[in-house]
């Protein structure tokens, strides 16, 4: 981890997944909605915070659902001017309206040398971005359904933390957190994917509508981290055999409807299911584990993504060198301690109103 070297233009990226937060769990549970209007507002809050922390340029992908359009429209408004928004550039890329758009945008941002990628989405979106950006840190904002990887956080404060890091005013060893990940391999089909929270093995044959909402549809959980307060499949490990984000190991759980003991866990917002627990244990890094089920589906970070047959022999391995992310609390605690957001004079309410935004260093 190193503090980004000063560069001509402070450039960060924003990826807002237009598809997150509107899956089947609005029907099968009490999940809420994150509309594109909400997401555009979150992007605008980030831009305000990036403007206040001296970011020069923000790159973001276009989309088919009006997020980029709403941001572009707002960028010509009074609020954008008064908040000294960074210069905005929309990536020139084709849209397929699938996760490929997120992956391509992440690759393009990495090529353009951004020092940070703010991600608006759920666990799945973060996973897709993390797979493409290497060591570029993520600023994680939850706009999904069952989110364990991105914490629920207001975008303005998160944006300040990200902006202060990207502008070199918070050291990396304070601002950044190294995350774990799970690597999923099916050599027979050339599949090599990652998950950031958990991989669930389901007896369901098809990926279907992706979400898993019933206890009988889960056979095993392999979690990189599992917090007791989590929502979603990792809550099973979190409430039975928890493991923190920083621990050098993970947690696994085997389930069966015929087990002698069961655990009540929130599989989705408002959806508590009693899940029979057969066995649990610790996931050691670098040791591949094979599902006991010969065939079924693998749910990566809560969504069924991979259908496997008896001949596929999937493996799941915990890795400790996952993506970097901004530790918003730690970063802002440092900012407070160093008075990084202090501005000169009483009449100035925005650093952009001073001659040089970096003069406050």
């Amino acid at each position, binding site marked *: 981890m190193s503090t980004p070297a000063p560069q001509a233009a402070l450039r960060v990226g924003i990826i807002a997944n237009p598809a997150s937060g*509107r899956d*089947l769990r609005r029907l099968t549970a009490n999940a809420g909605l994150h509309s594109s*209007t909400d997401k555009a507002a979150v992007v605008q809050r980030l831009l305000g915070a990036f403007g206040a922390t001296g970011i020069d340029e923000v790159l973001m992908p276009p989309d088919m659902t009006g997020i980029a*359009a709403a941001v572009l429209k707002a960028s010509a408004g009074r609020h954008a001017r008064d908040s000294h928004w960074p210069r905005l550039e929309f990536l020139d890329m084709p849209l397929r309206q699938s996760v490929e758009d997120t992956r391509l945008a992440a690759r393009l941002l990495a090529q353009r040398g951004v020092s940070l990628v703010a991600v608006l989405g759920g666990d799945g979106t973060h996973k897709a971005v993390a797979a493409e950006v290497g060591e570029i840190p993520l600023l994680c904002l939850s706009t999904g359904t069952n989110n364990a990887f991105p914490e629920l956080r207001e975008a303005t404060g998160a944006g300040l933390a990200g902006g202060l890091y990207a502008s070199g005013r918070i050291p990396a060893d304070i601002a950044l957190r190294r995350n774990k990940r799970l690597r999923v391999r099916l050599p027979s089909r050339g599949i090599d994917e990652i998950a950031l929270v958990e991989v669930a093995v389901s007896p369901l*044959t*098809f990926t279907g509508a992706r979400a898993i909402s019933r206890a009988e549809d889960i056979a095993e959980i392999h979690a990189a981290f599992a917090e007791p307060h989590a929502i979603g499949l990792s809550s099973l490990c979190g409430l039975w055999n928890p493991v923190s984000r920083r621990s050098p190991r993970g947690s696994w759980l085997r389930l069966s409807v015929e087990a002698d003991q069961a655990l009540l866990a929130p599989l989705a917002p408002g959806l508590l299911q009693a899940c029979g627990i057969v066995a649990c244990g610790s996931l050691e890094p670098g040791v591949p584990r094979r599902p006991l089920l010969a065939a079924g589906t693998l749910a990566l970070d809560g969504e069924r993504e991979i259908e496997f047959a008896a001949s596929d022999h999937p493996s799941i391995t915990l890795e400790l060198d996952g993506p970097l992310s901004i530790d918003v609390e730690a970063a802002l605690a440092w900012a407070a301690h160093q008075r990084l957001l202090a501005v000169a004079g009483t009449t100035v309410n925005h650093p952009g109103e001073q001659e040089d935004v970096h003069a406050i260093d």
Partner: protein
Amino acid sequence: MSTLSTERLLHAWRVMRTIRAFEERLHVEFATGEIPGFVHLYAGEEASAAGVMAHLDDEDCIASTHRGHGHCIAKGVDVYGMMAEIYGKKTGVCQGKGGSMHIADLSKGMLGANGIVGAGAPLAAGAALAARLKGNRAVAVAFFGDGGSNEGAVFEAMNLASVWNLPCIFVAENNGYAEATAANWSVACDHIADRAAGFGMPGVTVDGFDFFAVHEAAAAAIERARAGEGPSLIEVKLTRYYGHFEGDAQTYRHPDEVKHYRETRDCLMQFRERTVRAGLLQAAELDAIDAEVEATIEDAVRRAKADPKPSPADLLSDVYVAYP
């Protein structure tokens, strides 16, 4: 473990194959000039009709759109009767006086294709009200597109369905274009599913190239409606393989767009590959269905072409309901 029996999987394949073969044949036949009126082909969208209709029986009603052939076939309307109707022949399901955009078969709960964009939604809401008043478990499904999602009639239907807690499912088949206008140019509130919140009902988005995704979402929505929990909205994202109507030059979209979806996400290709890989179906049984479907379509076209047109005397029949 699949929630679908082999029989139901084979039925889904037969439905989707029939729709594809029906539409591809019409694509060829329409070019000969022999078919009166317009046809709007459903090819590419098969998983939506098959996935939703897998949960319905004849008691359940659907209201369709101008792109209605797929809905009719999936709801069980006779393929020969449809073909004859499209050819304007007396043997058609509406005696040849409706054509492609007015195919209806009340015995199958098919309230009709519809030439007016968004006009099916109030019909479905009415059928749902009837089901509720009768106290049976029937539901109604309104199909409309991204263009239809902007129509006031759809909003009014969604509002009343929610106010009266009707067993009505609104299925927005978002193929990206209202005729030649891209949805992202014309649908304000981005995702059509998000509009459900404005009417106090759940809204979800599903992958319309994936039969199993549509099937699962439709199961949840229909089960909810049958349990008396009210309406919901499903936005099915898909693409149409042909133009808005036959003859549409499609200058509004990149030629590569359809090619990409056909090659990477086609619903039939996916269904076949996944069910065979999972060992649930055999390639040979799917091939056998394909051959039967081809023969059925061939027979329907041959007979429809040879059938008589309605006579002048038929002009005033079925115009008014005869009251006793």
